[in-house]
């Protein structure tokens, strides 16, 4: 088994998807000749040809809408939005068409497609390049939403998403593309959509996060461990459908919870997690569940980024407050 980054694991996953399903194809801006601005599709056009790795005009609504039509006709398109901020022009196609054709046609027509969306800040990018709007997609019935934070999950969830008979929004944490390495099997592994991972056992407090923020969460959990505080760390991996059981089991045990996301606070997905916990575990709670999130401000440019993104210190601080409450 090779040590791969998330970027490499995704590349390997896409390659094995193209091998496994002849109906699979990739479509997006600059994914062919250049292999994508993040090189996730590097080499795939040469290997599978321009009919299966398609460079499109600059038109996100078209990419999703055309991909949707292909899916209805039996293909398994894997579409790339270059950055999450550029998925907004496709929101109408995603909400009004992709998410509901199965319902509208009572299963006659379906959209087994995957929309890959690199998201999140921390790379000092230009405006619109650091969005974390997963809540929009998580709030849309008919969509599944997954977000890996490790190479193995990246490949496994990607293949599960391509295999899934329904549309899957596949969020990729830009900041972690090349910062985490781990052994990833050559085989077309699967990671089940809808199952969270308890990364670290602990009995004092439950720390819940996903995607890029798992980095800060892991560091915070490790820091607390040094002080002898047991943090149970959960990587959701899937936002929809949410693995409520795993969350509830943990909080019933610890009685305290902190949720970490980088999206703006108001109506972010963190609120959904908090709500589910209080619905199921209220009587077990010793302290209010704390959200560590981005602010309700526009995502700042490079020099202001560190003020916006939750830091390890912020996570640690929230854990402390929860323990002291």
């Amino acid at each position, binding site marked *: 088994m090779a040590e791969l980054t998330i970027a490499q694991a995704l590349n390997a996953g896409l390659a094995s998807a193209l091998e496994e399903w002849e109906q699979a194809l990739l479509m997006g801006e600059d994914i062919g000749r250049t292999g994508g601005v993040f090189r996730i599709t590097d080499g795939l056009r040469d290997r599978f040809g321009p009919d299966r790795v398609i460079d499109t005009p600059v038109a996100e609504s078209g990419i999703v809408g055309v991909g949707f*039509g292909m899916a209805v006709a039996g293909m398994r398109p894997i579409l790339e939005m270059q950055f999450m901020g550029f998925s907004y022009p496709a929101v109408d196609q995603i909400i009004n068409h992709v998410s509901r054709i199965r319902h509208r046609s009572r299963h006659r027509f379906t959209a087994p497609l995957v929309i890959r969306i690199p998201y999140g800040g921390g790379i000092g990018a230009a405006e619109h390049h650091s969005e974390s709007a997963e809540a929009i997609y998580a709030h849309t019935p008919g969509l599944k939403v997954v977000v890996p934070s490790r190479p193995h999950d990246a490949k496994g969830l990607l293949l599960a998403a391509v295999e899934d008979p329904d549309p899957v929004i596949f969020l990729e944490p830009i900041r972690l593309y090349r910062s985490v390495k781990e052994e990833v099997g050559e085989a077309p592994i699967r990671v089940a959509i809808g199952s969270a991972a308890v990364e670290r056992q602990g009995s004092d407090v439950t720390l819940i996060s996903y995607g890029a923020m798992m980095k800060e969460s892991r560091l915070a959990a490790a820091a607390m461990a040094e002080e002898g505080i047991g943090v149970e760390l959960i990587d959701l991996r899937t936002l929809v459908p949410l693995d409520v059981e795993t969350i509830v089991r943990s909080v019933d045990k610890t009685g305290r919870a902190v949720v970490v996301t980088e999206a703006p606070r108001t109506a972010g997905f963190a609120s959904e997690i908090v709500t589910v916990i209080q619905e199921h575990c209220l009587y077990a709670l010793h302290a209010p569940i704390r959200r560590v999130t981005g602010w309700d401000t526009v995502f700042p440019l490079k020099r202001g980024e560190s003020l916006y993104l939750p830091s390890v210190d912020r996570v640690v601080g929230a854990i402390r407050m929860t323990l002291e409450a």
Partner: protein
Amino acid sequence: TLRLYRAMVFARAYDRKSMSLQRQGRLATYAPFEGQEAAQVGAAAALEPDDWLVATYRDAAAMWMQGYPLELLFAGRTGHESGGRPPDHVNVMPPSITVGGHMVHAVGLAWAERLRGSSRIAMTMFGDGATSEGDFHEAMNFAGVFGVGVVFFCQNNGWAISLPRSEQTASETIAEKAIAYGMPGVQVDGNDLFAVYQAAREAVDRARDGGGPTLIEAVTYRIGPHTTADDPGRYRESAEAEDWARRDPLERVRIFLSERDRWTEEWQADVESRTFDEVERAIAHAESLYPPDASHLFDAVFESPTAPLDRQRAELEALLGDED
């Protein structure tokens, strides 16, 4: 011709009957197509039975021509989702309610068929108003760049609800918009069955032969209101509609046929009354559909329901249980 004229008569009878059914409160809002029968029948007639049709709320005649059962059209209009599921051999998408969003789908459908080596093509129908949406542009551009076998069939019926064609776009014709995408564009008299059929036929053949997309502008007119909720008196002179009524697409073919002694009043009356019966049966069937229940709501969100959905479904069933 007789076959197509028969279809037009059927469509006209269906449309008028639907209007009265709506007034009786048996249908939700209905979007009549009176005046556009030649456009819809002529265009759909150019398709093979298994070609894709991606049309709108106003294209019932075309959808019916392509095999969409009457009772399903009514099912949707009585507010039942099962109306969105055509029989397995019928490749017609449920009518698009959003304006403009469906044309890109036709591009994907036709492209996929080509990739899979099938000879199926796709036709998409839309109105003059839909050409203003960004998705029209993206659909046309994708089709042009990738040479996809799609027929873009625009029924320019003069109005988009209350906006006249002249204020919808400053181009002289809609057909000429094809130039912007490097595809052929043709304008035809949408009330001339033969002209429409011929233009559609050429476009369909070109698409099937790998010749790429075509934009057809069928100039016609919406004789009735936008929908049963609309009052054209607020935005247009009745004289305009009367004027167009004189160019009735059915009448033109009727004259053609009767001159050749292939038409009689009895025959027409017979077709009409049979249509009314068929419509009655169809609406009755639609009204007799199972009343939606919890599973109706929950079992088509995904192929198999998720745990959170099962919990919500249980919640709803408990509530329904309480009620009786």
